[in-house]
């Protein structure tokens, strides 16, 4: 028992020292590299309207499928739209969508996980059973069910993804909440007659916030990947939105004649996902050691 509490204390100390974590990230070259690219992508996404040389939606049928030129740096697509501008706006779209999914996931997963871990007993059992159901079904299937039975749209895709991905998230948060519940400061809080809400929000949530943030960073890469996939097969963002998955889907038709069209959005996706994954791995290593 004593050993266990000590271990909990140690892990808690680890979670709390966010300064240490940040320092440790900077000792890892790959993580710093990832961080720089992520920062660059965020800047591009925010300043998309300033940076993009052209309107990403402007159709110009006389400029279809043209090569690079001073006005269109990477040329134009099948509707004469500027590829660079669409890529730049695509960064904004990817980040906005993934933040929505992440936010919604947290909004569902955190309260349910906290409740399950804090309440315990029957509520916990019921919630865990439900989570198990969600975990046994592939993400893609549920997303297809929701997006397919409702209208395929960005909104429905975001709802679909969040409604599936909250489950593993909630389970981990439940575990952390249970761990936090057993610590000494909880006894102290109870002794001081704090209400349940006070305990949950002021004490538990604050204690498990840093690892939650790390988990979220680790997820962004796969969320961006999934968003692009869904948009690619027509279940997510709809044309003419400048989104990387849609750009790839558009390019498929011109594979024989204009293979470069499918290179640019693909590179944009993989670079972004890799950058977030590098950063996430770095954060994970920092929190583990």
């Amino acid at each position, binding site marked *: 028992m004593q050993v266990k509490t000590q271990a909990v204390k140690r892990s808690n100390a680890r979670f709390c020292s966010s300064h240490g974590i940040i320092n440790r990230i900077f000792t890892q070259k790959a993580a710093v590299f990832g961080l720089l690219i992520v920062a660059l992508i965020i800047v591009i996404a925010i300043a998309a309207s300033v940076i993009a040389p052209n309107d990403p939606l402007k159709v110009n049928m006389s400029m279809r499928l043209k090569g690079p030129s001073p006005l269109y740096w990477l040329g134009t697509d099948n509707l004469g739209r500027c590829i660079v501008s669409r890529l730049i706006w695509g960064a904004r779209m990817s980040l906005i969508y993934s933040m929505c999914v992440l936010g919604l996931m947290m909004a569902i997963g955190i309260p349910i996980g906290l409740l399950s871990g804090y309440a315990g007993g029957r509520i916990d059992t019921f919630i865990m059973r439900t989570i198990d159901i969600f975990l046994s079904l592939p993400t893609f299937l549920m997303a297809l069910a929701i997006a397919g039975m409702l209208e*395929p749209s960005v909104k429905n895709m975001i709802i679909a993804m969040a409604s599936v991905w909250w489950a593993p998230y909630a389970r981990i948060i439940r575990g952390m909440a249970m761990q936090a519940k057993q610590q000494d400061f909880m006894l102290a809080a109870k002794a001081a007659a704090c209400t349940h809400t006070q305990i949950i929000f002021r004490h538990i949530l604050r204690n498990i916030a840093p690892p939650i943030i790390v988990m979220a960073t680790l997820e962004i890469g796969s969320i961006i990947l999934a968003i692009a*996939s869904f948009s690619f097969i*027509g*279940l997510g963002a709809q044309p003419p939105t400048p989104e990387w998955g849609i750009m790839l889907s558009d390019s498929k038709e011109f594979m024989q004649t204009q*293979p470069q069209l499918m290179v640019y959005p*693909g590179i944009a996706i993989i670079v972004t996902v890799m950058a977030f994954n590098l950063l996430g791995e770095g954060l994970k290593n920092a929190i583990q050691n």
Partner: protein
Amino acid sequence: MLKDIGERLFTLIPVLLAVSLITFILGSMSSGDTARTLAEKKYDRPTYEQIEEIRTEMGFDRPVLVQYVSWLEDAVRGNLGFSYSNDRPVVDEIVQYFPKTFQLSLLALLFLTIISFTLGISSAVFSGSWIDKISRVYCFWSVSMPEFWFGLILLYIFGARLGLISVLGGNSMKFPIIPALTMSLCSGGIYVRLIRTNMEEVLNKGYIRAARAKGVSEYKIITKHALKNAMLPVINKLGIGFGSLLAGSAIIESIFSWNGLGNLALESVKLKDYPVVQGYVLFMAVLMVLINLTVDIICGIIDPRLKNV
């Protein structure tokens, strides 16, 4: 053992009910559109009355729960309704298209198992060697690579450039080797990592040390003593992985124009052919449940500790 399986099957009924209810409610939310779509098919430019007539005929005006119960009754009897687009029974559609998806997913699972076990085991055994480094790079590549983009690239190389497969589709491929490779390569990373970690953990266990002291050869240590132990959690994950391959094959099927169930489901989404989508989701859910059950049985056979539980 049989009794166990029976009990397990029984507990799975709520899962299926939940899934079917969710898909049904989602479907009913869009039934307004459906009546119009059907009416448009029948009357070209339907009047309001004609749409309402279709609505009554199809039973869309009844309360959702009533509709659900009658749908469920049919479903239990093996009737999942009729496709809106070609009026064929949904069950027939599934039976016709599923073998292709199964073939693709099974091949992908085979590749996935070969890749992940080879890389996972060798990187754990020769940790720090060149194969370990290769497998690390592969893992990172695999979790970051968009499957559909990799599929497009392979389609370009093998289809447009080498002409080995048809770019425009049709079933020119006898075996879906390239689609299966795409799927397995892009999802292999997590399994390589999983096997590597498990194997490393097991190789540090006391019984491995004891077996070494006993004089067991390193080859036998790995194949007989370590692998079985390291495999248990992996089998579980591979089961879920097979489920994801089956359900996730839609993207790859559509890229390579492989006429499977996933492709059918995607087409049906575009055509708003809800009974087919609904049937697909339910069928897949049943399949997932059966896969999970099979995995549990396999684990029970391998691990004697589970038999008494």
